[in-house]
């Protein structure tokens, strides 16, 4: 078996800053989907400790590892290899399947709200997550800081997502320059 070099979807892209807001790719490490089997809530809670399985539309964090809600009885474990969950949950490796982007800065929410039909103003608080369309792309969006979001899209959509967010940031910067 040859040694293959793992590359993220946008490894050739340098972080881009417009209107003080930076679009960058993040390398989240391993990503695994954890889909609970019916009636295994308690067993899962025990097996995941110290992580906590997130409530819908939220994520939990422990020592840089995140568990992000992605659907009914389903969450993505990001940043660590999953524990053994035989008979408790279906675990599938998603690491190569998603591109992860971060948008950080004063107009991060404003830029994303041009593409995502959600209210991402501060009512969408740190710790909240959502499954929502980014343009026509299915995505996972969560707020990691007052001015910072992480956006996950299918890897095949990485460049489109980057382009769309960059255009949104550019137009906000252009508008700010006019005033």
């Amino acid at each position, binding site marked *: 078996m040859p040694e293959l070099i793992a590359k993220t979807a946008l490894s050739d892209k340098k972080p881009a800053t417009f209107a003080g807001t930076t679009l960058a790719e993040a390398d989240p490490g391993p990503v695994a989907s954890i889909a609970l089997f*019916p009636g295994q809530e308690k067993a899962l809670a025990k097996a995941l400790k110290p992580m906590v399985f997130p409530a819908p539309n939220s994520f939990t964090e422990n020592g840089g590892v995140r568990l992000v809600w992605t*659907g*009914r009885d389903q969450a993505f474990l990001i940043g660590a290899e999953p524990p053994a969950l035989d008979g408790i949950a279906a675990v599938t490796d998603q690491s190569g399947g998603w591109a992860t982007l971060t948008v950080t800065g004063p107009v991060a929410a404003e830029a994303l709200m041009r593409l995502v039909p959600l209210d991402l103003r501060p009512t969408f608080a740190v710790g909240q997550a959502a499954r929502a*369309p980014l343009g026509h792309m299915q995505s996972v969006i969560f707020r990691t800081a007052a001015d910072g979001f992480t956006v996950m899209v299918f890897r095949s959509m990485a460049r489109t997502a980057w382009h769309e967010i960059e255009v949104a940031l550019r137009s906000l910067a252009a508008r700010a320059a006019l005033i």
Partner: protein
Amino acid sequence: MRLTCPLCGPRDRREFYYYGSEDYLQRPGPDAGPEAWDDHLHLRDNIAGEVRDLWYHETGCSQWLIVTRNTVTHEILSTELVADRKKKGVRA
């Protein structure tokens, strides 16, 4: 038009895919005979008033919903997860 996904909250109609009447959940048994299957696949009521339909939250949480709405007033009366219905033991 907005639909309230029981998991995601109120969302725009464009996030959803419309499938058809809730009747599609009432699948006849394998021995039910051609008339029952014909009814199941093709015969629908065309109701002016309350209807129960299946919608798919395609660009959200990927859940099937049963949406009760009124075709006269366009009022959305309720949304529920098909999965929850199964949990409650309703034949689906």
